[in-house]
């Protein structure tokens, strides 16, 4: 039996896969340009020279996308428990503790309400720096609560994905979050409220196989890795090198699985325009 063919979640916690560090200057990982913090901020955390999109977390996306000072975080007190008492080479509780102290984030997702060009929106954004952006019970629960809040306030729902997949340490409970998050989107659809999915680097596994691919409109950032199986697992399966650009945003656009690829600097205006058009048909 080809058990080695089985898909892994491709959660990588090595330092190269973390979000960009905070510092006075940053070296572009693609073109090696030294970029000063202020310049980086002005370019929405992309490289002014080569357009490389740095991996950023929820705090920076709030700044990039929402009206200044409009964001009210919700459910920050919803925290991961350890229902299965999971221990691999380290206990899950130790991994969580380290992630909290290293990132100062509540979990792999931040959710809340804010405004976008004055329009009220429910907003969620994943944090790849928190255990590989992995989806466990907390991500699922906060996604559902944000979706409900969108319905209660008749707001569109904007969600930014960045995840290696479901969180292994919560096993089947993590898997069920795929169904749980998809379920709230059916209610949002019944309420005829737009759900805009923004897919960023990387989005694979359980997150791609649920809410990331269910947007009324799906927008990808340039060159983001987006797929179900991770490239390494596919290479092991087919015993071939994958072609250049495989599973990147441009590849998904070509194959019909995302609507648009939008530069992060343009994202705010595009989002606003799309939402206004979709909401304009309501009566």
């Amino acid at each position, binding site marked *: *039996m*080809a*058990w*080695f*063919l*089985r*898909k*892994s*979640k491709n959660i990588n916690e090595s330092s190269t896969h973390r979000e960009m560090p905070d510092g006075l200057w940053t070296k572009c990982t693609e073109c090696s340009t030294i970029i000063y913090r202020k310049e980086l901020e002005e370019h929405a955390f992309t490289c002014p020279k080569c357009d490389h999109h740095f991996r950023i977390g929820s705090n920076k996306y709030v700044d990039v996308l929402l009206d200044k000072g409009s964001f009210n975080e919700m*459910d920050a*007190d*919803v*925290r*991961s*428990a350890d*229902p*299965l008492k999971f221990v*691999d080479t380290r206990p899950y509780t130790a991994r969580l503790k380290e992630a909290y102290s290293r990132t100062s984030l509540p979990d792999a997702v931040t959710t809340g309400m804010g405004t976008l060009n004055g329009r009220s929106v429910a907003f969620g954004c994943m944090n790849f720096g928190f255990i590989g952006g992995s989806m*466990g*019970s*907390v991500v699922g*629960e906060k996604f559902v609560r944000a979706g409900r809040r969108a319905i209660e306030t008749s707001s569109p729902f904007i969600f930014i994905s960045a995840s290696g997949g*479901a*969180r*292994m340490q*919560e*096993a*089947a*409970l993590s*898997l*069920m*979050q*795929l*169904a*749980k998050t*998809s*379920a*709230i989107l*059916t*209610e949002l659809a019944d309420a005829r409220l737009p759900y805009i999915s923004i897919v960023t680097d990387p989005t694979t596994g359980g997150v*791609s*196989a*649920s*809410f*990331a*691919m*269910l947007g009324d409109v799906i927008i990808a950032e340039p060159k983001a890795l*987006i*797929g*179900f*199986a*991770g490239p390494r*697992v*596919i290479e092991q*399966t*087919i015993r*071939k090198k*994958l072609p250049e650009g*495989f599973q990147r945003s441009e590849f998904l656009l070509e*194959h019909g699985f995302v609507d648009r690829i939008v530069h992060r600097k343009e994202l705010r205006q595009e989002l606003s325009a799309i939402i206004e058009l979709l909401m304009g048909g309501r009566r």
Partner: protein
Amino acid sequence: MATNTTLDFEKPIVELEQKIAEMRSLADALDIQPQIEELEAQVEILRANVYRELTRWQRVQIARHPDRPYTLDYLTHCFDDFIELHGDRAYRDDPAIVGGLATLDGSPVIVIGHQKGRDTKSNLRRNFGMPNPEGYRKAYRLLSMAEKFGIPVMCFLDTPGAYPGLEAEERGQAEAIARNLFLMAQLKTPIIITVIGEGASGGALGIGVGDRILMLENAWYSVIAPESCSSILWRSWEYKEQAAEALKLTAPDLQSVGVIDRIVNEPVGGAHRSPVAMFNTLRAVLTEELKDLSAVPIESLVHNRREKFYAMGVWAG
């Protein structure tokens, strides 16, 4: 068809059975019938003991036993009038997911399940039960048809995972699974899920959202296979037993955290040892579950299904 595969922990049982068989061949010449009967009683006690104390990894092995009944076996033995329907109407027919029309106790149902092969040839054709996007899209089509005609759906989960292939990605494996989750969460007809063997990850859940989630006693269901979990978290393939323990992937484990509703008992020695007994048990359970669900108004059914999945997960605060 039986491969007579013996799992490691079944060896003492098989050895004793072989001894009994030898004695039987001598029984005409010697008066040893009482000894044979005593050994037969012993073998049943041994089997019951072994199967009562299975480790999680041993259950994974039973779930993968090559003689274990697969979806088509259940479709032909628990149901009547099975008519297979093929294709996703877009790309091709995926033999790793089968489906069609049937009757259960006289009532029409739509049946869908992962399908593994029995030998090398059929396993290549069925891709070891690992679907491509067109398999999920065939399921989507059958699910939609079930809603249209008000026919209940029964899904059977048995896959080592959705296929991690190049073309599967090109054709949108993630989108195909996501689309099914979205449809099943609101489908206006009863859905009963049974995990009959391996329930690996999104590939299993892609046809696994329903009103009642049943699981055979020795099936497993989790976010990842123990070997892959071992390779990622332990950075070695050698820790599959520990991974299976950590993942808590058995039916009793999952019932205790609310992921499944009901455990369907297998015959002693596993479904592969007494398939007919297994078919009879499952037919009775499905008939009973369907009767209960048929009494629920459709609006409540969909509401309850969504609430059931909203309740899944454990968090603090």
